[in-house]
């Protein structure tokens, strides 16, 4: 019993001392732990950025002016630097500061609600991104800020981003067949950022477009568009130009029971649409090429681009030497 009293006394003291030591150590650990959580948010934001944003805004946030996707890696500089009238855009009248308070709120709100009249989709409102993902991506975008016009990205990052951009936006070949030209439009306009050319829904909640013009139609909506109209050139072009917005009340239920995100409107010329429709018409629902397209490809290129073909890389990730691949199952980042 005496032994028990001794043990109890000693270890009560021991526990108290241990807790004391731990408690004192907490003042050092807590800020570190905080920093680690912020760092983790940036890491996860970077990954989500690559998956959801990089198709238009570039791997390094360099933007893609042709499609109206602004440069993001200088966003702090752009909004915070006073212009000729001495006011920064951030503080302009009726500007961001008045409406959103902080740049972070502005970016989060844009990610959530999209931009009206521009291809920027409402990632949050349509259910593609969760609130925590929106916050993470914002953390990553804001981690780029510097006072220079260029972000704080390394040369390696900018190089990789350029290579990726080249890979995603190949130059048009006038001799290429209509299907290949359509593929170029499909990648240049960023369609492949969201849509697969088969029966699979993508990570960005967009329906697969395989079989769109074939009998039976897509796996998602069959022979109809989400606004209930039959698939034909006129309606598809109208849909691309306007997106979901004007047809909110005419939205039909997907046949496969999945939920899909909202399609933003894209500006597209008649020639571009012609090429694009050749590409869309060339696919069966399961992602394979139709017979005619197959023959066309064999004549001009000697091979079908139906699978992700690539030469063995020279050791460079995002190998620029690799021929473009149509968006296979999954978007860039998900194999």
């Amino acid at each position: 019993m005496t032994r028990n009293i001794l043990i109890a006394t000693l270890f009560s003291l021991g526990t108290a001392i241990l807790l004391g030591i731990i408690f004192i150590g907490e003042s050092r650990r807590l800020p570190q732990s905080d920093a680690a959580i912020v760092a983790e948010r940036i890491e996860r934001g970077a990954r989500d950025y690559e998956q959801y944003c990089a198709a238009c805004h570039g791997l390094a946030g360099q933007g893609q002016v042709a499609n109206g996707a602004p440069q993001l890696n200088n966003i702090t500089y752009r909004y915070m630097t006073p212009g000729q009238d001495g006011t920064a855009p951030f503080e302009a009248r009726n500007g961001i500061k008045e409406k959103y308070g902080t740049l972070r709120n502005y970016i989060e709100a844009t990610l959530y609600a999209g931009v009206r009249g521009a291809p920027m989709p409402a990632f949050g409102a349509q259910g593609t991104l969760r609130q925590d993902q929106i916050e993470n991506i914002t953390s990553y975008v804001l981690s780029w800020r510097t006072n220079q016009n260029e972000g704080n990205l390394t040369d390696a990052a900018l190089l990789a981003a350029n290579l990726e951009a080249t890979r995603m936006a190949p130059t048009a070949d006038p001799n290429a067949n209509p299907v290949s030209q359509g593929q170029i439009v499909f990648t240049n306009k960023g369609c492949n950022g969201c849509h697969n050319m088969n029966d699979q829904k993508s990570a960005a909640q967009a329906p697969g477009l395989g079989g769109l013009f074939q009998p039976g139609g897509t796996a998602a909506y069959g022979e109809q568009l989400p606004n209930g109209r039959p698939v034909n050139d006129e309606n598809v072009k109208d849909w691309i130009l306007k997106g979901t917005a004007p047809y909110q009340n005419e939205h039909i239920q997907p046949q496969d029971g999945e939920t899909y995100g909202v399609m933003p409107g894209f500006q597209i010329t008649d020639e571009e649409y012609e090429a694009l429709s050749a590409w869309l018409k060339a696919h069966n629902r399961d992602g394979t090429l139709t017979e005619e397209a197959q023959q066309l490809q064999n004549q001009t290129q000697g091979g079908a681009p139906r699978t992700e073909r690539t030469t063995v890389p020279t050791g460079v990730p995002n190998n620029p030497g690799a021929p473009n691949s149509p968006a296979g199952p999954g978007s860039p980042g998900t194999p």
Partner: protein
Amino acid sequence: MATRPARRPEGPVQRLKGALVEASRSIFPSMGAAEWRSVIRGEAAPRPNPRMRVHTNSFWYHIRPRALPLEATAWYYTFGLGWMSFFFFVLEAITGAILMVYYTPSPLVAYADMQKIISDVPLGRLLRNMHRLGAHVMVAVVILHMLRTYFTASYKAPRQFIWVTGVILLILTLVLSFSGYLLPWDQLAYWAVTIGSSMAEAAPLFGSATNLLLRGGVDIGAGTLLRFYLLHIFALPMLTLLLISIHYYAVRKQEISPIHELFAPDNPRGWGKPTRRKVPFLPDQVFFEIALIVLLTFAFVAINYFFWDAHLESHANPGVTPQHTKAPWYFLWLQGMLKFGDKILFGLILGPLVLLVPMFLPYLDRNPSRRFADRKVALASGVLSLIFLGYVSYAGWPTYGIQQTGSQEILTDFVPIEGEGIVDHVTWSELPSTPVVYQVKATIGGDPTTTITDSNGNPVPEESLSAETHHLFDEFREHVQHWVEIDNRFRNPTATLAIEPWTYLQREEGGETQVVLGPNGQPELAIKKATVTLVFEATEVNEETGEVVTRTTATGEPEYSRSQQADFLHRDSHLGNNLEENASAPRDAQD
């Protein structure tokens, strides 16, 4: 106390002493200073024994017996497991009550609250660790307690009822522990509960209804979290407390079972034996238990601070299933059984049997004897059942009987979409800060050829890389070779692991953001990016022979498949974790 000596004027010491005695009397009724003195000196109790009156005069001490049988206090043969179960129940209640203060059961904020507990609440991480580990240990202790009871045949008459309440308590403990899984709302929470609740669905008749009731909807969402939270903090603990009271009341009533081996063959139940030796509660047992509580608390705090960390995974993501999703370890047997396929046999018949047979065991086992020699069938079937449960638990392990694809495995092991991979566990500063590309070309049976280059293909001298980077590259090569050997859909791959610097570190000073310069004048990095690219021959199944063959183009060249996944590594993301990761230790691929 008819006559009292004339009171002397009281000094502060006397008053303090008086207060202590009063306090002692209110905690230990009828124990005054004199009685305590005799306890501390180890004197024999006077008669009538004032230490016994404690129990008759106080509600709390009434719960505990005035004296316990010697076996009940000895380590052998109870091992104190029942007592320890209750200790962990109380520990969970205390730590859980404190954690509740910082927690909101909503998918929108639950994960942020967990981060707050870890990074903003002093001792928060310790509390969370203790609560998590305590739950696992409690399940283990309860299971051991049941095994002990089974193998010493303590469930037999007259103690059948104790056993039945014990089985119910085991189920309650499992459900209590499982209901807490969801609350952090991270990937582990989401997917373990997805698996757990869809196992309920396997029951044919009312399975989907149970699942709906449990989830509060088709998918796991806000409704599910609130349900699990209320179950976890209110309904189940209350029910468990009630059951513990009944269980312990029954134990008090029947007393703990005598040691079975002591019985003569002609008196198997030990009836009519002379009164066994008793240990008085006061002082022996009470000090013993206090010492044990203090010891266990000390050990548990130390373990949770120095040796164990309840890892918080990334935010629940319904879109990305972790590669090796599995149920909690104590439900692996169920997952394993369901993997064998037949839902009627394994889900409806065997599953409930695993719980129901033990429940009615005392009524099924009519053998009155408690001696090992007379219980060969019972002991053998006990051991066999354990082996069976062990086997189906092993079958429940995610790698069992599931066809893995090499390319997916390598990407997930090194640069997973959610959670941490092998690359995350390399010390950040030891990774190269200039672009380095490690390339492996592997074939079946051959030695993989490797190159280390920069991003332009110029060779990088091996000496310029740190030992940890070399270890990482070696591990990558081994993984690639391993999967080439065992997965015939992963053919002749060219695998690259590229480490690139991605962004520079910057700091705000005087309203200006500046890139931070390192000691050598070079800008410090904030993020490094690790990219794994796998290019391998595309395969398809030959429909006639069923063989896996390489797909070829019209001209007969092999087609290639390409998989790529990247992971961003921030310099600070492992800060504040005092369990320093040993980066050179290969991580278990199942983890």
